[in-house]
């Protein structure tokens, strides 16, 4: 009897002292699920991502299919979300537009992550002169007016618009992430578990990738999630300003195309894509807020 009790309590202490990665994830997941707004945001993100991934494969019409019905048919008539002034199917255009937006959002965020992680890790881990130089560069890049440079870049390299947007936004977007990664590394490299790893003979890259990076992931993921709507905004703004292929399907292009019809016979052409952007970025922002609370990190708002 006595020994059985002992065994049980030993088991329990082991559980408390050694939280495995699975339990950590479980805690975060539980906190995330408890927040209604985070669940709502996450659902939106998931739904838009699924639409962007498989939607374009199953929609009945493409961006070049004109006169599928009378032009300017209102929504909820015989065409579900109506047609534009070229008689294109609005629902199909919106679905293909979702792919364009998320392609830019995730593409730019991946580039930002690659640059920000590499630069932040090197600066924070090695310190000294290299840290000083890299952070000066980060400060300088942070002062650059992103959207204004994007306008020039897209105007100059019109041919490959969407990839230029990804490239330039990523190249200009990394400094804040680099700063966050750097400060995480500065704190984490002084911890005893890193010292322990080093005393056991672990090399620099092993310590960086296996011991420090996993502990810095929370802040990184939150920051990246909240940055995706920015890149979606950039793409929409640029195409709205007329720097894009007018026959492609993008929410920004649709808004530019539809603004002439807003007050007359076709309010839905510009209203729907704007609503789509609002809902998508609301999803990412709510999910990011929820993640931040669940992962317990503090990150300030962003201004470029």
């Amino acid at each position, binding site marked *: 009897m006595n020994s059985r009790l002992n065994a049980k309590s030993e088991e329990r202490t082991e559980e408390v002292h050694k939280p495995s990665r699975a339990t950590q994830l479980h805690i975060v997941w539980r906190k995330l699920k408890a927040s209604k707004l985070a669940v709502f945001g996450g659902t939106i993100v998931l739904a838009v991502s699924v639409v962007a991934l498989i939607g374009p494969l199953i929609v009945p019409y493409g961006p070049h299919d004109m006169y599928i019905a009378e032009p300017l048919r209102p929504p909820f008539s015989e065409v579900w979300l109506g047609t534009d002034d070229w008689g294109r199917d609005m629902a199909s255009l919106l679905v293909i537009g979702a792919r364009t937006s998320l392609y830019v959002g995730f593409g730019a965020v991946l580039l930002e992550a690659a640059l920000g992680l590499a630069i932040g890790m090197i600066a924070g881990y090695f310190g000294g002169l290299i840290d000083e130089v890299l952070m000066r560069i980060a400060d*300088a890049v*942070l*002062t*650059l*007016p*992103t*959207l*204004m*440079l994007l*306008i*020039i*870049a897209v*105007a*100059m*390299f019109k*041919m490959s618009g969407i990839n230029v947007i990804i490239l330039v936004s990523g190249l200009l977007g990394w400094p804040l992430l680099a700063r966050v990664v750097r400060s995480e590394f500065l704190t984490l490299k002084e911890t005893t578990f890193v010292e322990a790893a080093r005393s056991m003979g672990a090399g620099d890259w092993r310590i960086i990738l296996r011991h420090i990076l996993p502990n810095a992931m929370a802040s990184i993921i939150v920051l990246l999630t909240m940055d995706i*709507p920015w890149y979606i*905004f950039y793409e*929409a*703004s640029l195409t*709205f*300003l*007329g*720097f894009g292929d007018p026959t492609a399907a993008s929410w920004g292009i649709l*808004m530019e195309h539809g*603004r002439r019809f*807003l*007050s007359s016979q076709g*309010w839905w052409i*510009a*209203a729907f894509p*704007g609503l789509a*952007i*609002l809902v998508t*970025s*609301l999803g990412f*922002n*709510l999910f990011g807020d929820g993640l931040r609370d669940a992962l317990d990190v*503090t990150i*300030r*708002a962003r*201004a*470029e």
Partner: protein
Amino acid sequence: MTLVTYTIRRLIVIVPTFFLITLVIFTIIHLAPGDPVSIMVGTLGAKIKPEEKEQMIQDFGLNEPVHVQYVLWLGRLFRLDLGHSYAYHQPVVKLISERIPRTLELMLITEVISLALAVVLGVVCAVKQYSLTDGVFKLGALVGYSAPSFWLGLLALTVFAGMLNWLPSFGVQTPGATFPTIFDAWFDHLKHLILPLTILIFGWVAYLFRLVRSSMLEVLSQDYITTARAKGLKERIVIYKHALRNALLPVVTYEGYSIGFILGGAAVIETVFSWPGLGKFWVDVAANRDYPTLMALSIIVALMIMLGNLCADIAYAIVDPRIRYD
């Protein structure tokens, strides 16, 4: 060290920003396919022989490497020679100086009103965290920064200019109208200002409000606030004198360092409302590939960004009692 020497030191640190911004723009322009001479000749509608074109490329120094061309451009800049616009056939200085006041007007009013609103709302919501007021404004801010501002602008135009016909839909003044007194002209201008200002302020308050609120919450949880309360100070004094001053520090930096961001937003909003300012001009000039004008505009943008950074540094020094001027 005094505030003056501190300011001069910050100024020296900020100067490289100018070269960075202009150099980046210069490089993008010169990496782009297509040469400026063909575009310039094209806009003049002239026919040109290949050897004449070669001569022009020589004259403009376009056969030199990019960094040499940049130095040549700097040289012309120091002789105050900004050149002629390809697209507008007017001196660049004239084109830009006409548009600066239009953008400054929008930006300054937006900055001042947004900051005031964001501080008041941010403090109220932080003090009454989780209250109904807090919830309502948090939701409003969430919509404000999730909605694309140009879309809100389009909707506002449709409703208030198109359907209700209360406000004008474009420009800064009703074209062709005559005004009996100067006040009528002002009133007319004011009506043109309302829509673009409201959209800009809504977007900007949404960002600043979140920042003020979270910064205020952070400060309110600190020990020295508890101490101040324990001393028996009035809650009003604790919040507005002890807490707010420290909570404003990140806000001041954010506002000063975001001039480039605000200018980018203004470019889109000015285009929506056909507002003849620097932002819309930036878009038009980029679309026309009007290189001399674009480079001259980038000087103004760089100067505005530098001024914003400097103001932020000085304001930080004034607000932060702890800062040592070194």
